[in-house]
């Protein structure tokens, strides 16, 4: 049984502290949802875990099975078993999916000869048209196709832990169902541990969370079972953003509970 352990993680962007001490432990096969309002630090958390340039970790630790991730370059974190499904998958002109996955597997000393057949099988499983597989990575794919593509890569690479950064944004219901089902299946197929970062609960209809955390102002402010997500669906994040919400918004009974409090 492996574990992804995040302890007291603090980080800043451009001199501004965004994460204020995040504590989380995800075990293999578990699904943890991290929910929170806009500006809570959700994307920062996912980027910091994967080592995206532009973020400075100021404290805390992140380990997979005791291996310190924060001292590793991004590709070594992937090798250690971490995967990030990006909210906005980047278009990489001139680089094919097969090239990407072949290099990724080879670099980890794994058998890359299976890429072609594995990709074909996983693409079919997630409903990604094979004609799209010959395109350069993400180029000219729709929002839904991009998310299916991210999930398909996850399935081919079989990481220990996957961070899903707003997997549910920018895609239609069918694509959302296909992606969340595939991830759910991976939790038993290869014991994938999942950290699903999301604003909405619709992702969690197919991808059943074991634990739901609420991230607000850069720290986990509440954790509970799946019922916490249902509760959020009803009440919104008002309770968690009260401190910084403008007074007028709190007074307005018709205020959008999902409105960006920093807008």
């Amino acid at each position, binding site marked *: 049984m492996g574990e992804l352990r995040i302890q007291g993680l603090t980080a800043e962007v451009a001199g501004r502290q965004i994460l204020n001490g995040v504590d989380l432990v995800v075990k293999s096969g578990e699904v943890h949802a991290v929910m929170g309002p806009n500006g809570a630090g959700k994307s920062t958390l996912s980027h910091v875990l*994967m*080592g*995206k*340039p532009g973020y400075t970790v100021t404290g805390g630790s992140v380990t997979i099975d005791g291996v310190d991730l924060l001292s590793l*370059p*991004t*590709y070594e974190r*992937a*090798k250690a078993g971490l*995967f*990030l499904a*990006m909210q906005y*998958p*980047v*278009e*990489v*002109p*001139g*680089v094919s999916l097969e*090239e*990407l*996955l072949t*290099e*990724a*597997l080879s*670099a*980890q000393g794994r058998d890359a000869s299976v890429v072609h057949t594995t990709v074909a099988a996983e693409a079919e499983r997630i409903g990604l048209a094979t004609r799209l597989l010959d395109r*350069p*990575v993400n180029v000219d794919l729709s929002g839904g196709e991009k998310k299916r593509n991210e999930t398909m*890569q996850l399935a081919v*690479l079989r990481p220990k832990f996957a961070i899903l950064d707003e997997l549910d944004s920018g895609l239609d219901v069918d694509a959302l169902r296909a992606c969340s089902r595939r991830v759910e299946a991976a939790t038993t197929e290869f014991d994938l541990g999942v950290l699903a970062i999301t604003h909405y609960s619709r992702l969690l209809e197919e991808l059943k969370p074991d634990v739901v955390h609420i991230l607000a102002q850069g720290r986990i402010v509440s954790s509970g079972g799946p019922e916490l997500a249902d509760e959020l669906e009803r009440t919104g994040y008002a309770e968690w953003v009260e401190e910084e919400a403008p007074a007028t918004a709190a007074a307005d009974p018709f205020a959008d509970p999902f409105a960006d409090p920093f807008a």
Partner: protein
Amino acid sequence: MSSPQWLVDRRSAAVQTDQFAMPSSEEEVWRYSRVADVDLSQWAIVSDRSEGVPAEASALLESLGQLSGAVVVRNGAVVASRLDDALSAKGVYVGSLVDGPDAQNSLGVVADGGPDVFGRLNDANFLDGVLVHVPAGVTVESPIAIIDWIDIGGSAVYPRLVIRVGADADVRVLDWHGSADVAAFVSPLVELDVDRAGRLSYGNVQLRGPRVWQIASQVSRVLNDGTLTASHAGLGCDYGRMRTDCELLGRGATGNLSAVYFGTGSQTLDFRTFQHHAAPDTNSNLLFKGAVGGQSRSIYTGLIRVEKDARGTNAFQTNRNLKLSDTAWAESVPNLEIETNDVKCSHASTVGPVDEEQVFYLESRGVPTEIAERLIVAGFFDEVLEEFPVATAVPLIAAAIDERLDAGVNS
């Protein structure tokens, strides 16, 4: 082999009438160039004809797959040529210029004297010259390859190539510029002549050795409804320059111009392009993509000129540069000069490092940083290479790019 009298006269006229004053880098078209470092007295003009096909040229021809015809030029002398019999029977010609059909009128048909002093030097000093002639209505199915090889150290060589494509004729030509690892000065002049509704796809690979200085000119004219596609790969040389003058002279003429270039070490790669629209409904598309690593430099300056009569013109010019090291340098200067309102014109130019987001994306899948950058740089050139006129040359170009990436370009 002695030259015909008309050629002897032409040469001596060229020598007598010109001053051969070196241009100054004060002139816009020579700005940032290394022309000030060219000392012609340092190089000996080759006057003896080389013989025999170099092994490298044979190997190259071998790797190019099926060809309709081929010419090997060594230090300016045609040392071998061949053409499918069926094409000879149709009047196609591939070989030494002076022996070709209508030789006297073909030489200088597009670029009499060339666009600058180096063109005039070529006129005065070229040894044999190559002519590719495709008569009206003839389609040449497989490409024709020209291997232009230099292997005499200290030499000055002036290769000359004339390609004439008749009305509604169609041909693809690969012009490969290679060399042994010698120090040499080479100044090719290429004339591309596309008659009405003719189609010429011309691919030029410049992969000379690292001690060669080359100042090349490619001048083309396209008549009504003709299409010229000219692609260049600029990889070799210490200093490698190519000036492109594309003259769209007939209504409905099209000029597609593209290039990839990759500088490493202390190379300078220098490109000047002129898209000249002189007739209505003419189209030009230019896409030059380059990368500079090490302490190398690249220069791109381009001008789209649309004349008053050239209404209905579409003219596009894009130059993109990847800067792979802090010490590399790329200059990009696009220009427009438009004298009519009825045009669609655009230009774009960028110089920047490899996209950090793209690198991060590949790294997040487990691809090591260096490999990620390699994939992105190699992929950057795909857009041009996919359209390269002679597909069998593409793996050779890609291999040369890989070799440069292997050698390290980040510092």
